[in-house]
């Protein structure tokens, strides 16, 4: 049975562990061997067998003593963390040379909550530097490779998380989404990933990129597995000033429960799904559009009603996001000065030169680009024209969603305009920004969004369906995703690995 363990998801493994058919130590050893065998995928930046096996041993001991069940649904289940979360047990680099070898004195809240739920952390996952990018090529260490075609990108910035889940190295992983960094790599690798409402998961210990946009989210094989992980990750945290004092529902129950007026055959009866006409226009690859439309037809068969809506400022979300996120980044990343932590240059004459040399050596090109944009739009004489204008448009974009939600319960569309491109095939950074068009609007509004596998498009590469909900409606997104996954098996397809 051991050779198939890696094919099982979070909920299935929890059931095996509960039935004592496998121990967490056996499971952890099996997955560690698999991680080592597929090192060439570039998914991990750090793995620690000793740490992982100690956690697994503790989980087995707790279970033997009868501490399991409802309070610890993840007890003994191996996962891994995007290297944007700080961890006491592993180095934390944010995919940057700036933080090479950095050891955090504390765990991020998301990390400690998953540990408290009993999850076993195998290590840290590759990502674009400081979560800036959509390809994982901006990692200062190595590109992560799409397991469906290792010459292609897995997307980003949570690229390593997507690869690890898609390649069946771990059943679940953490990611973060600032402008699409959970949803887009999930789409490009055929896994399920949810970005919750802004404020749902604590940002404490998430290395900051753009603080008014950053949100943690789980990535796994199915909506149900995401529900299990999100349950443990969510909730108010006094250590994050923008953490919401919002009750956390039972996500697993909301994912699986039959809704009023629905039946087993038509679980989505009564659900109105809005299709923004701006999400289905030119610029979306035919294979992506066809796959998304087929998934929507499936949702219709399950009882949902499709209605047309409009998000008229979809295209404007690109400049708005790429003003606001770099502005916040330039401010957040000013902390890297070579004094308290991070890289310090070897040669400098004075303090100013030490700052400049340390930052110039430590940051990669995309990070420098965004710091430059941010410093410019916040500078004297430009603030009103760029930053303030972007924040006003941000409200108009958020209002557009509220207008659309008058006519529908969820909004659906593609996650990305194309399937995963080849590694190294995009050299124009500004053109790369344009590919974020369908994930940015929900990010700017702070709304929850999910990507669920919908099939395959060009070159046989995976395509995700994006569903966007109103504030705090993660349960409705997971429920719709789960209904689709009960009726289709796209999420069960696994890449053939060399």
């Amino acid at each position, binding site marked *: 049975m051991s050779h198939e363990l890696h094919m099982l998801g979070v909920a299935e493994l929890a059931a095996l562990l509960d039935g004592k058919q496998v121990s967490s130590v056996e499971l952890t050893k099996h997955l560690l061997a698999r991680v080592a065998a597929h090192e060439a995928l570039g998914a991990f930046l750090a793995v620690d067998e000793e740490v992982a096996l100690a956690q697994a041993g503790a989980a087995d001991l707790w279970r033997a003593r009868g501490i399991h069940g409802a309070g610890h649904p993840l007890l003994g289940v191996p996962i891994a963390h995007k290297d944007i979360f700080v961890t006491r047990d592993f180095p934390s680099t944010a995919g940057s040379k700036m933080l090479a070898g950095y050891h955090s004195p504390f765990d991020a809240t998301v990390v400690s909550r998953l540990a408290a739920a009993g999850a076993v952390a195998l290590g840290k996952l590759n990502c674009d530097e400081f979560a800036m990018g959509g390809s994982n090529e901006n990692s200062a260490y190595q590109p992560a490779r799409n397991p469906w075609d290792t010459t292609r990108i897995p997307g980003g910035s949570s690229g390593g998380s997507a690869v690890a889940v898609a390649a069946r190295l771990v059943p679940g992983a953490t990611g973060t989404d600032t402008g699409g960094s959970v949803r887009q790599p999930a789409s490009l690798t055929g896994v399920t990933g949810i970005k919750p409402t802004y404020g749902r998961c604590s940002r404490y210990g998430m290395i900051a990129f753009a603080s*008014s946009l950053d949100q943690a989210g789980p990535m796994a094989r199915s909506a149900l597995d995401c529900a299990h992980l999100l349950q443990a990750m969510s909730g108010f945290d006094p250590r994050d000033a923008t953490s919401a004092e919002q009750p956390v529902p039972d996500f697993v129950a909301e994912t699986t429960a039959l809704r009023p007026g629905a039946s087993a055959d038509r679980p989505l009866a009564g659900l109105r799904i809005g299709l923004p006409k701006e999400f289905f226009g030119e610029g979306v690859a035919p294979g992506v559009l066809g796959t998304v439309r087929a998934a929507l037809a499936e949702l219709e068969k399950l009882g949902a009603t499709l209605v047309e809506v409009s998000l008229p400022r979809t295209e404007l979300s690109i400049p*708005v996001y790429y003003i606001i996120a770099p502005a916040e980044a330039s401010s957040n990343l000013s902390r890297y000065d070579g004094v308290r932590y991070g890289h310090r240059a070897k040669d400098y004459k*004075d303090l100013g030169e030490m700052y400049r040399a340390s930052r*110039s050596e430590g940051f990669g090109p995309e990070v420098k680009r965004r710091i*430059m944009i941010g410093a410019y739009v916040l500078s004297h004489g430009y603030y009103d024209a760029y930053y303030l204008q972007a924040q006003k448009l941000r409200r108009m974009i958020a209002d557009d969603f509220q207008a659309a939600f008058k006519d529908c319960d969820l909004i659906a569309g593609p996650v990305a305009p194309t399937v995963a491109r080849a590694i190294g095939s995009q050299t124009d950074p*500004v053109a790369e920004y344009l590919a974020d068009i369908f994930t940015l609007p929900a990010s700017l509004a*702070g709304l929850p969004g999910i990507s669920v596998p919908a099939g395959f498009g060009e070159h046989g590469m995976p395509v995700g369906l994006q569903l966007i909900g109103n504030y705090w409606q993660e349960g409705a997104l997971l429920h719709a995703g789960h209904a689709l996954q009960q009726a289709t098996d796209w999420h069960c397809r696994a890449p053939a690995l060399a």
Partner: protein
Amino acid sequence: MALTPEDVSRIASLARLDLSDAERHDLLAQLNDFFGIVERMRAVDTSGVEPLYTPLSAVQDVHLRLREDSVSEPDNREANQKSAPAVEGGLFLVPRVIE
């Protein structure tokens, strides 16, 4: 309105970045490309619209939360300075700033 090489140098100085000639050259072209996209945004009439600094304030009142002004963290100096580039006697070392 296109940025000039002088603008790039000024921004780099604000951002405390030293740029090589090649980086300066690439950034000038890339930033001008980028601000080409931004022009469309500037043309939109936003008069009377309140900026949305934090997303939840689109639908609810968001007030800044302040904690009690009391000691909540233990002294963890050694662990906190573990990753510092240069430390002596519990202090961070930097080049001399006062002669």
